[in-house]
């Protein structure tokens, strides 16, 4: 049976993105084992996709005024609000021999972890290719994946109780995109597991559900482990990149 190291973690957004990149690099060098990391952005923060324009994907004035940190991911995809009290991010770092080689298939394979997690909490969740987890047509989870040599990093969100009004103030989506999704505002397009099941799901419940969901989706044993010093060292160095405006404004 596939065994993955399980890391549960909490930290600032620059550290979180730096650690994901560090783990991708170190796994591709064969230095660390396949890992599932479940983590919280603390404080709450926004991230944008590698190819996104900062000014067109985020309400920059609002986040500066409200001191909400933002950084750019190494993965593609869209802008995200990571609510410290309502969202858990997962990251799967794994050798390609354990996941479907086909990119579309690998998205499905890993995303089913959040789908099973939401279902186990009573929500009517489904996977919608390429990278959405939806409940009754509304998005509660987004994923983004990149690959380096023989290794895959997929990270994604699990909105169990995100402040969606806050999310709608922070993220920007052009009218063209919303219209194509059949909605007129971001708020209409998103939901949380709590909203869907009509009760407040706690962080502990969400973490438990994700552990259960990913064991099932990956058909793996998740073994609680610790970060190695080499991961922490590399993440500490890479953190400078994620803090720099040069990186954040790579595509202004």
């Amino acid at each position, binding site marked *: 049976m596939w065994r993955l190291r399980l890391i549960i973690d909490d930290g600032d957004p620059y550290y979180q993105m730096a650690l994901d990149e560090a783990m991708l690099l170190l796994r591709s060098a064969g230095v660390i084992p396949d890992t599932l990391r479940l983590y919280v952005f603390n404080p709450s923060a926004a991230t944008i996709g590698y*190819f996104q324009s900062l000014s067109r994907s985020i309400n920059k004035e609002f986040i500066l005024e409200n001191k909400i940190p933002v950084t750019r991911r190494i993965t593609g*995809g869209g*802008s995200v609000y990571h609510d410290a009290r309502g969202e858990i991010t997962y990251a799967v770092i794994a050798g390609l021999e354990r996941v479907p080689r086909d*990119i579309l298939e690998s998205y499905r394979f890993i995303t089913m972890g959040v789908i099973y997690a939401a279902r186990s909490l009573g929500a009517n969740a489904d996977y919608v290719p390429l990278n959405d987890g939806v409940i009754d047509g509304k998005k509660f989870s987004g994923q983004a994946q990149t690959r380096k040599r023989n290794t895959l990093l997929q990270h994604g969100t699990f909105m169990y109780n995100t402040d969606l009004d806050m999310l709608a103030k922070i993220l920007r989506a052009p009218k*063209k995109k919303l219209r*194509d999704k059949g909605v007129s505002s971001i708020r209409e397009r998103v939901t949380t597991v709590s909203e869907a099941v009509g009760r407040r799901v706690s962080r502990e419940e969400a973490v438990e559900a994700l552990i259960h969901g990913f064991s099932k989706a990956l058909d793996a044993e998740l073994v609680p482990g610790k970060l190695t010093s080499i991961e922490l060292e590399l993440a500490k160095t890479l953190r400078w990149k994620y803090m720099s405006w040069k990186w954040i404004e790579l595509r202004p």
Partner: protein
Amino acid sequence: MVETIVKSMKVPGGKLLEIQLDYDPNECRVVKLYITGDYFAYPPEKIDEAEKSIESRPLALDLLDIVRDKLSYTTLYGVTVDNIVELLREAIEEAMEKCRQ
């Protein structure tokens, strides 16, 4: 002096694509190209290379071939190379038009 043109489209069933072309209207040259949106590219560096490939070149439609070439071994999800080239064509044509005035 730098002027900016942004062209965007939502690819049906796909992602958002924006082409931002920064150009110098006096010299009729590209200053910078940004191929932005919420799409995915494997490997991602190919997009960086495509953006850089036409930097500081004179505005002309043959720039489209350079960008197309750079993206020939890139796997894209949510947008296609044709989408990128088509939007870039619109941006370059508009920039050339403004340049002549």
